[in-house]
């Protein structure tokens, strides 16, 4: 009886393991199948402009957010006092807790009026919306990049620091000439993962670009994630075939970014 129970437990565990494996695979398979079955291919939406805009926004946001998170983690861990480092970690944890939805709403509510008050023209120009989207996405990327670099610094053996210090290196030299090269690949991996996150983040970007949609801009022509979240404006129905095609492109970006990140650091702690 005990043997049977153990065998059943192991079998169900194996099934669950395969279920975990199949979850992302099945999503990609369903999306690919749906994209191939597109019959209602819209004539008015070109994917060239959204793809280009997505690439630009995601790349800039990843560079800014990933770089800022990495530098912040490095500075707080190596140069800050323990109490200050703890405060910084708490602040980053608070930012991490803000859902993308709320950040997008804040961007619309705060960044756009701020731009107007600084002399921007009404209605908003495209660059203003793009800048707001980049700010939101960079803010989203800072916490995981911070955590990844902090984790990489924790992986550096204490002997390495001790050996450098014994060789006569001061604190700054240990940090800049020993630790920076050791965590550099993690930082690049964090930027690559940040790119995947920025390219796939639809909610926040949509809320920013909805501001433009109020001025009769074609929302779907702006970014891929936006085209999924609201093909013709928030609240309207979306076309599944059209969304699947955009989703397939987005997923391709994501897989390329993850492969690049794995090339830099397979053990990156990206939450």
């Amino acid at each position, binding site marked *: 009886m005990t043997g049977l*129970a*153990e065998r059943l*437990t*192991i079998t169900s*565990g*194996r099934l*669950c*393991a*395969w279920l*975990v*494996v199949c*979850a*992302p*695979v*099945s*999503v990609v398979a*369903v*999306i690919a199948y*749906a994209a191939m079955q597109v019959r209602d291919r819209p004539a008015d939406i070109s994917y060239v402009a959204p793809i280009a805009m997505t690439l630009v926004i995601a790349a800039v946001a990843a560079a800014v957010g990933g770089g800022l998170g990495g530098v912040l983690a490095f500075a707080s861990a190596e140069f800050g006092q*323990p109490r200050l*480092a703890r405060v910084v*970690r708490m602040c980053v*944890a*608070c930012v*991490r*807790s803000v*859902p*993308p*939805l709320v950040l*997008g*709403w804040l961007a*619309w509510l705060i960044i756009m009026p701020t731009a107007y008050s600084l002399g921007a023209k009404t209605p908003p120009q495209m660059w203003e919306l793009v800048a707001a989207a980049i700010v939101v996405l960079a803010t989203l990327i800072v916490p995981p990049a911070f955590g990844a670099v902090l984790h990489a610094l*924790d992986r550096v053996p204490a002997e390495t620091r001790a050996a450098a210090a014994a060789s006569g290196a001061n604190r700054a030299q240990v940090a800049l000439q020993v630790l920076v090269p050791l965590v550099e690949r993690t930082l690049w991996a964090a930027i690559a993962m940040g790119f995947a*996150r920025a390219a*796939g*983040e*639809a*909610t926040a970007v*949509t*809320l920013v670009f909805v*501001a433009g949609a109020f001025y009769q801009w074609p929302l779907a022509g702006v970014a891929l*994630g936006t085209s*999924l*979240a609201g093909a013709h404006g*928030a*609240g*309207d129905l*979306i*076309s*599944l075939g059209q*969304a*699947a095609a955009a*989703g*397939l492109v*987005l*997923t391709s970006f*994501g*897989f390329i970014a*993850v492969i690049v990140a794995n090339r830099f650091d397979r053990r990156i702690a*990206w939450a």
Partner: protein
Amino acid sequence: MGVSGFPVGPFDGTWTTLFSVAIALPITMIVALLAALTVAAEAAGAASSLVRSAGRSARAVPPVVTGCAVAVIAAASGATNIVGITVLALFIACLPSAAATLVETFNSRYARRRLFAAAAAGASPRYIALAVHIRGSVRLIGAVALRTAARMCVETAAIVIALAGVAGAFSGGPSPANVEAPYAPFAVIQFFASAAHPEAPIIAWRAISLVALVLALHAAARLIEGEPHELRGRA
């Protein structure tokens, strides 16, 4: 089909969200826990390495894409139940990351030490799974569950696309815009209401409540798992 018809109650959709998370979270955690235990016991065969890869590759699949896939599945199967679609979207979106995190937990240096000690003492596989892994890591498992719950509460993109996509397939199907607001998930209502009335004070209250909810869940997770060992040593 518009968004202006949403009532602006501060707690619209709360029960649907709680109901959906209450269904999706146990299912996700049980599947993830069983998968992680099997992988940690090296009894999963070929799936062992693939589970870890699934955690990484799932990061490449944006929630909007997961929502779109769920919409396709729901449209093909004829499902129109809002809670069911939401649960499926949350389950698929959160399962790989939860499983990968649990695998990392069970494969940590401390868990491996406990495992080897128990195996050397002649413990049975079932004892190792239940007493060594689960009892030894119960706080970390609780933290993973709380973080997964936090993610589920605000996983807007997947749910919005899943529901709106099904509505696109079935005219009159469940769309956030054509269901009663109390019956649509909270984050979805927040999304559409933010788009329709960004300056409304009620949106600020909803945003604050969302942030407070996520912050409370993350804080509870940190409280029960404690400070990470490495950081504790550093500080």
